[in-house]
């Protein structure tokens, strides 16, 4: 389980970092513009979202059945299927495969589920070097960081920062801000690793139950390298990624690439259905699929929260979130930042552990509007705030009630009494307006640190209307 971090403090620190603020603003602006350009027709956008949402909903409706079908189809195709309830179990499964093949180093394609498992650290403890091959992941890995965005892991860094990093960490590299040169450097380093790695580890974007096919979406070709060159390929994914039919894949892929990076298609869409077959010249001899639960089946059990699992990890919610745009991904201190992280992390790890970020949402709805599979993210944040503050133990989420503070409960208790008691409400209105000059700025707490105190009216609307009627 992840450790609790103080989200609010991390957010405050991020807000004070002008480079970080600038990097994120610029990056999010460009991602939003590019997405908008992919959906010039509002009607088509809404229909594409309806379709993608319906496909994901149907996948979840039949999740158990489709997982079993996926397993049997994969096995029929020669893919070995493993089930893990926890990241620890997933790590053990992967380690066992690596050790059986005497792997000293493995090459990785991008996988957020492997980030959930902190797989690289785990393998390192067992003397296996896991090298990230996605350029962004590689950059954050050599800097000892974690991804700050689920699609663009190194989006928090500018050219200069990456130039400095390469010059410092990669032997024989001179400082250059030329992106083509930097890219060529990474290509060279990683090519030799692809050649020699004993195992390739990748994520999965969609797993097709009908055919036992693992789909990967990427631009760089590192995903194809990882899943083709080493003799063993291990794919790891969350149990929710299954879709029933092959024909479900195209509509999801279409909204995924357009929503994520504003691309009409990514360079590669890779559909893997088996290890190397008799007579084939390349491809891994062994393919493994690790299906990780890590709290997903718990989310599944609560109908209100199940939509969380529709997510196809496009990142559009964070690209459109005004909070994420300002504080960046690291402030969340979690594997998944931004709006999807705000609904996923507290459910996976408990509100007591990762619930603080629930307060960092103005419920402006931009994420829900952008979501290509129509996850009602603002409603789910609102539901989780209810779970976080309820005191009846009737909720379903780990750590329910953990954020209920006595003083807040008293405030809302009083609020309730005043607002349902007409004479009390009017008396409060009268008192507030008559004594308006006496209300000290400090009474408004942090509000007035950056704002002038709002002026209470001389008379309430209730009074004005009463006077008019009489």
């Amino acid at each position, binding site marked *: 389980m992840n450790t609790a971090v103080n989200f*609010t403090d991390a*957010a*405050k620190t991020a*807000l004070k970092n002008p480079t970080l603020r600038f990097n994120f603003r610029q990056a999010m602006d460009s991602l939003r513009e590019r997405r908008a350009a992919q959906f010039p027709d509002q009607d088509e956008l809404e229909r594409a979202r309806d379709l993608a949402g319906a496909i994901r909903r149907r996948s979840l409706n039949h999740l158990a059945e489709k997982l079993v079908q996926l397993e049997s189809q994969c096995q029929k195709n020669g893919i070995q299927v493993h089930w893990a309830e926890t990241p620890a179990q997933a790590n053990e499964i992967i380690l066992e495969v690596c050790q059986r093949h005497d792997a000293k180093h493995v090459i990785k394609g991008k996988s957020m589920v492997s980030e959930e498992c902190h797989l690289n650290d785990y393998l390192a403890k067992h003397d296996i070097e896991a090298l990230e091959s996605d350029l962004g992941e590689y950059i954050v890995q050599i800097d000892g960081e974690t991804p700050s965005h689920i699609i663009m892991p190194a989006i928090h860094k500018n050219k200069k920062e990456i130039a400095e990093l390469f010059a410092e960490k990669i032997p024989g590299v001179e400082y250059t801000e030329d992106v083509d040169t930097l890219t060529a450097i990474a290509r060279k380093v990683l090519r030799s690793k692809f050649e020699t790695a004993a195992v390739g580890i990748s994520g999965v974007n969609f797993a097709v139950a009908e055919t036992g096919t693992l789909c990967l979406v990427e631009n760089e070709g590192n995903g194809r390298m990882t899943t083709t060159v080493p003799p063993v390929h291990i794919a790891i994914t969350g149990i929710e990624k299954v879709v029933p039919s092959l024909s479900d894949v195209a509509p999801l892929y279409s909204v995924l690439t357009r929503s994520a990076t504003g691309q009409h298609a990514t360079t590669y869409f890779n559909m893997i259905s088996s290890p190397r077959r008799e007579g084939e010249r390349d491809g891994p001899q062994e393919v493994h699929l690790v299906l990780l639960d890590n709290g997903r089946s718990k989310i599944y059990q609560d109908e209100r929260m199940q939509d969380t699992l529709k997510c196809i990890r496009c990142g559009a919610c964070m690209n459109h979130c*005004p*909070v994420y745009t*300002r*504080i960046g991904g690291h402030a969340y201190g979690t594997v998944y930042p931004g709006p999807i992280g705000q609904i996923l992390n507290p459910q996976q790890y408990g509100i007591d552990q990762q619930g603080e970020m629930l*307060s*960092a949402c*103005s*419920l*402006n*709805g*931009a994420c*829900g*509007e952008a979501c290509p599979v129509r996850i009602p993210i603002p*409603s789910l944040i*609102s539901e*989780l*705030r*209810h*779970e*976080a*503050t*309820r005191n009846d133990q009737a909720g379903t989420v780990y750590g329910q009630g953990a*954020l209920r503070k006595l003083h*807040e*409960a008293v405030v*809302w208790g009083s*609020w*309730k009494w*005043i*607002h*349902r008691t*007409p004479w009390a*409400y*009017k008396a409060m*209105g009268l008192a507030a*307006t008559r004594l308006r000059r006496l209300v000290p700025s400090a009474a408004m*707490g*942090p*509000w*007035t*640190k*950056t*704002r*002038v*105190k*709002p*002026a*209470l*009216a001389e*008379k*309430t*609307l*209730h*009074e*004005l*209307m009463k006077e008019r009627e009489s």
Partner: protein
Amino acid sequence: MRDIYYFGTCLVDLFYPQAGMAGIQLLERFGARVHYPQEQSCCGQPPFNSGFRDEAQNVAIQQLALFDQPFDLVVPSGSCAGMIKHHWPELLKGTDHEARATELAARTYELGEYLIDHLNVTLEDQGEPTTVVVHTSCSARREMGVAEQGKTLLGMLKNVTVEVPKYETECCGFGGTFSVKQPEISAAMAEDKTTHLAAAGADRFVCGDSGCLMNLSGTLEKRGIQLDSSHLYDFIWERVQ
């Protein structure tokens, strides 16, 4: 003469009663008889958004009973209208009040939307030429789907030039209790929004939602930015006198 209910909202009641009154007068001028139940208080959004659903539900039930005639309910706020229209049915789901909440939701409107779509207003501008910059609340935009109505009304005023700020659709950072629980993030958002409002080069900033207006006018003033603020309906009412 059509009868309508008016839900003034707690922020208008305490901070912007003139805007609330302006809304009522606009409705009356264009043919509505306005009913204002004196027992009304708040839609319950602050506790609802803070997770305190029982408290919000309790007040919603009491408020729901005030609007039992089949009149349309008009609200001078996208945010509070959104609460009544979308969240009361959700909040009262499975209770005896669910059907009534759903029925009320179907006849709940934001004021600007109502003036345009149901009263077919045309506005005769009596004021001097001026330029305004508008912020539309996220609830009006995304929850109520009435992003353009405020600008449409202002567009009817022949001497008023309407500007929108850069990043028009982005949240101003108010978000109710969000601004209290995450004051630094909220302030950063308000700072950006006010910078963009100021850059629009308008004579005045107008906004049809009290929460955003309070947040932004307070930030403008604190930052020493010379840009007067008005509630949208206050501004419109003055122009048509």
